[in-house]
């Protein structure tokens, strides 16, 4: 059963920009919608409005047939009544309570035995059973993250909001949790909205992506589609010029991995900790184009294909190829002329193995 999230909110900040964001999305249980935008784009404001912590100046918020906010009708449902779980960026665990009491904090309406049962269930799900007696100050950042997630999910919210869920963690913990968090969100079966400015976080966690830039939602779609084919310059600037393609790791050898991308196979550097489904990310600037396969080259990947589209971008040309998957290359105009690029022409794309970044998809 899906729930429809629909909002159109406007909020002015004293001395700051006006944020206006509108979005209508069907959210399936366990599905993750990423609200992606640079800092200052208003994504945190939107999330706080969804949680009911901030009140928009105008507009509406509706979720699963309920109106949470309506400016003209003066409706504002209190955060307590929305049944929304919120994962704060720095976790905001209650420092005076044990991990157990933190997880059980929102279960005050349940009888005591059920509270204990639910806390136990959450602790098992997140692998934090050993920590129940500790205080938040006595556990690591990654563990705090799990506790905060358990606390947010324990009361069975209808919608889970996550504010930059990985940014407060140190790099190794972040790598470790990135793949796991997505699997966890799917397993929890609650639709989630993740707010982030981090591209890797967006790729690793999201099913669908909404780009928030310059105070408005610019584009919504499957994550790799939005990254690979931004609808306008503003989106392109905020997501970067990158090819993001669904892929699968099929083999490993000597620090390298064999990756199946569409109908093609490529070699990439093994990032470790990654199995199965991934996103292969290749920056358009790092794709070299040649007329024919080169006998001697250091590039591990030579992909034969045809040019499907070309569009000039200042001194550069954006060339779209079909080489078993859709690949965009950014080359200079003289470079394009030298190779004799034209739509329909065969071409060979060279991609170095280290230029392919793999992001886990849990």
């Amino acid at each position, binding site marked *: 059963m899906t729930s429809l999230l629909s909002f159109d909110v406007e909020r002015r900040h004293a001395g700051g920009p006006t944020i206006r964001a509108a979005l209508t999305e069907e959210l399936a249980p366990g599905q993750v919608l990423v609200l992606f935008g640079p800092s200052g784009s208003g994504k945190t404001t939107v999330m706080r409005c969804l949680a*009911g*912590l901030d009140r928009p100046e105008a507009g509406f918020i509706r979720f699963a047939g309920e109106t949470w906010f309506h400016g003209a009708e003066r409706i504002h449902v209190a955060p307590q009544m929305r049944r929304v779980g919120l994962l704060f960026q*720095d976790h905001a665990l209650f*420092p005076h309570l044990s991990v157990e009491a933190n997880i059980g904090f929102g279960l*005050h309406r349940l009888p005591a035995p059920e509270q204990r049962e639910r806390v136990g269930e959450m602790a098992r799900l997140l692998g934090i059973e050993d920590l129940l007696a500790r205080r938040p100050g006595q556990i690591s950042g990654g563990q705090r993250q799990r506790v905060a997630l358990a606390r947010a999910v324990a009361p069975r919210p209808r919608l889970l909001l996550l504010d930059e869920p990985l940014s407060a963690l140190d790099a190794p913990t972040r790598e470790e949790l990135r793949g796991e968090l997505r699997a966890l969100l799917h397993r929890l079966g609650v639709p989630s909205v993740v707010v982030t400015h981090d591209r890797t976080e967006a790729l690793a966690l999201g099913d669908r992506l909404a780009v928030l830039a310059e105070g408005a939602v610019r584009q919504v779609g499957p994550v790799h589609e939005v990254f690979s084919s931004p609808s306008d310059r503003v989106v392109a600037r905020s997501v970067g010029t990158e090819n993001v393609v669904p892929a699968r790791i099929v083999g490993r050898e000597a620090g390298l991995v064999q990756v199946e991308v569409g109908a093609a196979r490529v070699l990439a550097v093994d990032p470790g900790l990654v199995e199965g489904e991934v996103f292969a990310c290749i920056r358009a600037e790092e794709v070299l184009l040649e007329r024919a396969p080169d006998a001697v080259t250091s590039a591990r990947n030579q992909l034969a294909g045809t040019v499907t589209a070309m569009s000039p971008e200042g001194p550069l040309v954006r060339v779209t190829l079909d080489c078993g998957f859709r690949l965009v290359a950014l080359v200079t105009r003289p470079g394009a002329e030298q190779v004799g690029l034209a739509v329909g022409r065969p071409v060979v794309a060279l991609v170095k193995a280290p230029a392919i970044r793999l992001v886990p998809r849990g």
Partner: protein
Amino acid sequence: MDLQALRLSLALAAGTTATLLVIGLPLAAWLATTRWRFKVLVEAVVALPLVLPPTVLGFYLLVAMGPRSPLGHAWVVAFGRPLAFSFGGLLVASILYGLPFAVQPFAASLSGVDRRLVEASHTLGVSRIGTFFRVTLPLAAPGVLAGAILTFAHALGEFGVVLMVGGNIAGETRTLSISIFDSVEQLDHAAAGQTALFLLAVSFAVLVLTYSLRRRPVLG
């Protein structure tokens, strides 16, 4: 030392502290969170006793409690005796005079509690009142306790307002500080010295306690 006066002073200080916890905490919580434009007016009224001579407050209280004022008259009708020059009147005066000593540290410690913890509690379905007792108050406890102790110590030694409103009736309104004044008037410096030393020791102990509470880091 005048044990009757000691007992009276302790009762007065305890009553004042208890009452100020009950009315001071909600007031402080309101001051710590409200965005009302005229909040400064309330803050100024609360802080008045800090700068006002005790005799001024005492004078107005005396007038308000007098039989000719509506309040004083109503009190006489209800309880059959005037509020002025009674323990009850003393308590009212002491509560008003102690307001800033309770409310200011309460408000400071309550507003020091991380706002996001309060918000986290709200999103977990806990009401504002529930959040106050489960999150804000426990985290502000050292500051609230320090404020309560300070209020107690201040009420224990209060002189000016007590003298204006309560006078000097043994067993009813004669507190420790009045008894010191009394002893000196009667040239009984030994008794005055004893009581004074006692109050000095108590005040010093209270301040040591208060400052050590403030230094204590929040649990976690």
